[in-house]
């Protein structure tokens, strides 16, 4: 047990053991969900039998339970047939009322589908939706991984170039304008100020877009774009809910942290290129943002990037979970019929908790599969760099 526990949260955790822990987690959760689904099924059978019993009374001809006189007559008849069992008779009348009320108000009675719980037909239907969900998730995760690195690298290089934000530059310009208030300089300063403020506005709008919840973006373009298409879902998954910006920020944090380490100074002393100017002789060509993995050869940034990327791989796990959250929100909030998470919401609405549990288990498996894949990837990277 001590060996088991000691590897749980150590950096040098063995892959095999990590996989065992993941496997144990999946088995445990499968057992929990199986017990829950079975319990729901048992309760459904009991409830159906009880409803059938009550339905017999409702099916009595010439009996209108909405009419107080009929109800009174029925109650008195019960007292005659089951004399002295007042409590039992009261319960029957209450059960009839409950069933009638449910038949009017329960959404489960309003659907055309038969609500039989987790049948094979339902499993087949869910499987198709699940595969589609996994495909969308995989594409979005991959694109976010690629984009986040590029955004972070761009931000890091801009930081190294000591570029202030547009607003700070505008303030600085206003400050400097004191000395240049007359002549043509004043005019050019105003133009520059206008340009900086416009850039700040565009940057602000882009940033706000990246933080906008998916449902706000989708509703704002609903009448002009088909918001139920897979392509739109992928696009929303990338740009909305703050997923991309948070992932990029994490990578940026690793870059900053790496750049402060001692080996960077040593590398500079050993004459590696260290200029962060775009396209300068010893700087960084801008096109490297496209071929990011191998684009910084003979530059000190290459090591910073590789080390940051190495730390970024395990951090992807928490972002994967947040990404799934974002996709669930998109499917649920947009009410896209025939999608996995929309189905989850529908099943909760119809109180088909066994199907809802199966869908949640599917989502749990997706995250676990991502964690397993990331652990294997991290292990391979470790071996590659001789850890």
């Amino acid at each position: 047990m001590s060996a088991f526990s000691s590897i749980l949260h150590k950096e040098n955790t063995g892959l095999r053991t990590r996989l065992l822990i993941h496997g144990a987690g999946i088995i445990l959760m499968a057992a929990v969900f199986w017990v829950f689904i079975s319990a729901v099924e048992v309760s459904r059978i009991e409830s159906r039998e009880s409803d059938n019993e009550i339905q017999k009374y409702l099916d009595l001809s010439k009996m209108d339970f909405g009419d107080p006189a009929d109800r009174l007559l029925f109650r008195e008849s019960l007292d005659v047939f089951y004399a002295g069992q007042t409590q039992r008779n009261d319960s029957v009348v209450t059960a009839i009322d409950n069933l009638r009320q449910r038949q009017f108000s329960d959404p489960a009675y309003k659907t055309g589908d038969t609500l039989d719980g987790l049948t094979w037909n339902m499993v087949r239907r869910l499987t198709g939706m699940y595969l589609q969900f996994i495909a969308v998730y995989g594409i979005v995760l991959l694109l976010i991984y690629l984009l986040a690195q590029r955004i972070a690298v761009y931000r890091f290089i801009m930081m190294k170039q000591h570029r202030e934000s547009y607003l700070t530059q505008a303030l600085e310009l206003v400050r400097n304008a004191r000395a240049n208030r007359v002549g043509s300089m004043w005019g050019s300063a105003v133009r520059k100020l206008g340009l900086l403020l416009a850039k700040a506005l565009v940057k602000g709008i882009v940033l706000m877009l990246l933080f906008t919840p998916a449902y706000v973006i989708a509703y704002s373009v609903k009448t002009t774009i088909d918001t139920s298409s897979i392509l739109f879902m992928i696009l929303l998954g990338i740009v909305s809910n703050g997923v991309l910006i948070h992932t990029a920020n994490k990578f940026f944090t690793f870059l900053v942290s790496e750049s402060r380490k001692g080996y960077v100074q040593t590398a500079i002393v050993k004459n590696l290129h260290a200029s962060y100017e775009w396209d300068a002789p010893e700087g960084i060509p801008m096109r490297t943002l496209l071929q990011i993995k191998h684009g910084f050869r003979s530059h000190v940034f290459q090591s910073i990037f590789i080390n940051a990327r190495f730390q970024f791989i395990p951090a992807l796990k928490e972002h994967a979970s947040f990404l799934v959250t974002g996709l669930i929100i998109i499917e649920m909030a947009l009410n896209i019929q025939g999608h996995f998470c929309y189905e989850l919401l529908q099943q909760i609405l119809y109180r088909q908790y066994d199907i809802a549990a199966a869908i949640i288990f599917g989502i749990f498996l997706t995250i676990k599969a991502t964690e397993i894949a990331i652990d294997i990837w991290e292990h391979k990277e470790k071996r590659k760099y001789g850890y």
Partner: protein
Amino acid sequence: MAIRTFTGNSWLDKLTSKKDLLWLTIWIAGLGVLWIWDALFLNAPAFARLQTAFLNSLLTGLMVVLFSLALGWFLGVSLNTLEHSKSKIGFAVLSFVTDILRSIPQIIAVLIGYVVLTILLHNGIIRSSFVQMVWIAGTIAIAVFLEVADTIRQRIDYFRTLDFVDAMLCCGIKERRIINVEILWKNSRSHMLHKLIAIFGISIFLQCSIDFIISVGLSTDVSLINFPMTLGNLLANVDSKQDILALSNLFTEPGYVSVIFTRHLQGLSVAFCIVFSMLCIYMIANGIVRRHKLA
């Protein structure tokens, strides 16, 4: 001369050098401008609803932060204690459970919490709006508190690699005090503050999203019960949705921008509150990282 006075102010210099304070000011100022605009152009009932929704969301967010701090602190310190105890069984079990919790997407945890809340409301067990908000905050905290626990463990692990802990132990200071006071309180406050601000942002996002989802997807059930007014369910309101849909008009009729900020104010105000708050909270958290060199 006015420019000189304006830019020469030392408070402005301080503000631009401390990004977290700058963005806190921008957040408050932005919301202040929105409040004045809404007071002028938004109808009174909608304005009142918007204020209540914003304050409720803010209050719930703060409760999430407090609950997460308490749960995260407890779990982080417990894991650390169990890890260094003789028997590792407790550590193994607790780590295993947190490992599973990590694999459940936050929104699912929150959704389960809401389903349970709906059942409790149906059965009349919970009635007060405040208790509902506490429940919601508790549910969201369960979904996000692991981040606090991770930060606490990282800080303790970091200090354990230094002579700091051993030296204090040699001086006769109890381990509990070293961890809770010396490491976490005296030397990790900025890390914790950064994490709690980030959690506040996530909690606002999750709260708004789940309220929106519930109001849209489970509307039949929710209409029977009155959840406390929040930014999420105010956004799911038909009027607000119409306002957001009206933004589409800008693609075909750019001139519509002149009326959109007066005619469709409720939905736009709610959406702005959510997005602007999330942006500012992110910037404040980043500002703290930069100022305290946490990265």
